[in-house]
């Protein structure tokens, strides 16, 4: 697993998500603040919109839109973060490994 730290999920672009998948990542998890709690205005809303778009793009080429998911978790919610990871792992198990790798 590779963790990329960004100041705000609003910085995450469709291009970044797709590039990660293109280079062989099984999935991309975008973890941001709760709606309405963005320090930068509407960064997390933008991120959700982009994740939705990236899903559409991945579905179009049959890689599976579920490889990318957005989760809203605040810094204090360790439990919620764990649940998010478990959810992501479940989803990826269902789709299987990224056929672009290897």
């Amino acid at each position, binding site marked *: 697993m590779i963790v990329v730290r960004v100041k705000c999920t609003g910085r995450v672009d*469709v*291009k970044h998500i*797709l*590039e990660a*998948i*293109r280079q062989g990542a099984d999935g991309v998890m975008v973890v941001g603040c709760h709606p309405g709690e963005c320090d930068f205005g509407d960064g997390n809303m933008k991120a959700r*919109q982009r994740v939705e*778009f*990236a899903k*559409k*793009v991945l579905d*179009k*080429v*049959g*890689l599976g839109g579920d490889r990318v998911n957005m989760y809203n978790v605040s810094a204090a919610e360790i439990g919620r973060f764990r649940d998010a990871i478990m959810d992501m792992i479940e989803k990826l198990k269902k789709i299987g490994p990224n*056929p*672009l790798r290897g």
Partner: protein
Amino acid sequence: MSELRRRVDAITEAADSFRVRAFFTGEKEILEAGKFSKEEYERYLDYLLEDEFRRRLVLGVIREGNGLTIDEIAHRAEFSRLEVIRHINALRYEELAERKSDGLVVAKREEQRKVPYEKIKFIVEGGLCTGCGGCIAACPVYAINFINEKPVIDEDKCIGCGICNVHCPRTFFPISLIRESLKGSPVDVETEGVSFYRQAFTAQTAKEKVKQVCQDGGIVTSILAYLFDRGMIDCAIGVRKADEEWRTQAALVTNVDELLGIAGTKYTVTPSISLLEEVKRRGFRRVAVVGVPCQIHTVRKAEVYSSELLSFLGEIVVLIGIFCMENFGHTALREIVEGRLGVKLEDVAKFNIEKGKFYVHTMSGEERSIPTKEISVLARHACHYCPDLTNELADISVGSIGSSKGWSTVLIRTKRGEKIFEEAMKEGYLIANSLPDAGMELLQKLAKGKRKRNLEALSERAKEGKYATLIV
């Protein structure tokens, strides 16, 4: 390279292409502008992405090959030939691919791009804008207004989506592709001068009311009246005289009375295609469009390159194209009428071009004229680069050249046009005889002359290093 990798590369590039990005990032602005509903927005975004995806797949094939024919590309991409041509036209315009003199298509490096693709500003500033109004109808955020005879972009509103650029007939124009998609029936006559047609007539209205207001044979108005009477259209787009001094206004008419009010030729550029937007806004659907060649070109280009957006705006029932040698701005018209002919615009009852002369008929029954040769320099600049006299891509083309006074020359070009014309004739709206050979010969000659002259002007322009419309 694996098939999947190829597809993923193409979709990644597509998702990152400027049109898709701008449309995607501009969601809020687009929905706030209110032209498109959320559902239409989603559908259009999907259309853009799909279109760009398929284009990049074609580009992928071109990049892998080292000079391929269209058929080879179609075979490798597993796309139809027409679709490949469609994409290659756009790739050539965007300078991502080029066609070499031997006909083979090769990829170009993105850094070599020189033409700005985002907006129509360079078309307007370069004097190529015809003033058709297509960009205004297409812009999803109402950023374009027609001011002082040209489209002006409000940069605060513009989201840089480039849709105006796609709709503009003067950025690139896919004439062969449109021709190929329109004809294709064995009875078509193919000519060098007036392009393809199914039948040629000289015709006249059978309605007294039309005779009183029309320009020549009143064919345009008669066909539209028939369509209104039969309930086949909700509205029609044309041009009306807006004031005493012959300023014009784009007109959307919804019944025969209003239709009679906009008959007759106004020699003034009017961005009436912008009204496709009003068709949608006012909740109409089925529309007939009357226009000079560049305006019909705009609608045809949208049918091929932006069908999804066009389908939101309205359903085109028929395109009636009028012949056009050249057109003028209001300022130029004033110069001709007041400056050269010494007649006040408000005293003019009718304009007419006949046998190489521009005529003005005054309210008091006087007639003045000037050879068209002398006023050509005053025509809209873009007209000097337009190859089309007879409105080659309309369903039905109507003009006066080739017929006697009070009659119209009519070229029926498509099946859809043929059906409407024949019905209107059967139902007593008009009478028609086949066009005499002499009329056709004259028309051919003038049409060829215009094409030759203006295509030469276009290539001169290219030689000077200015942008010249890519006609493919």
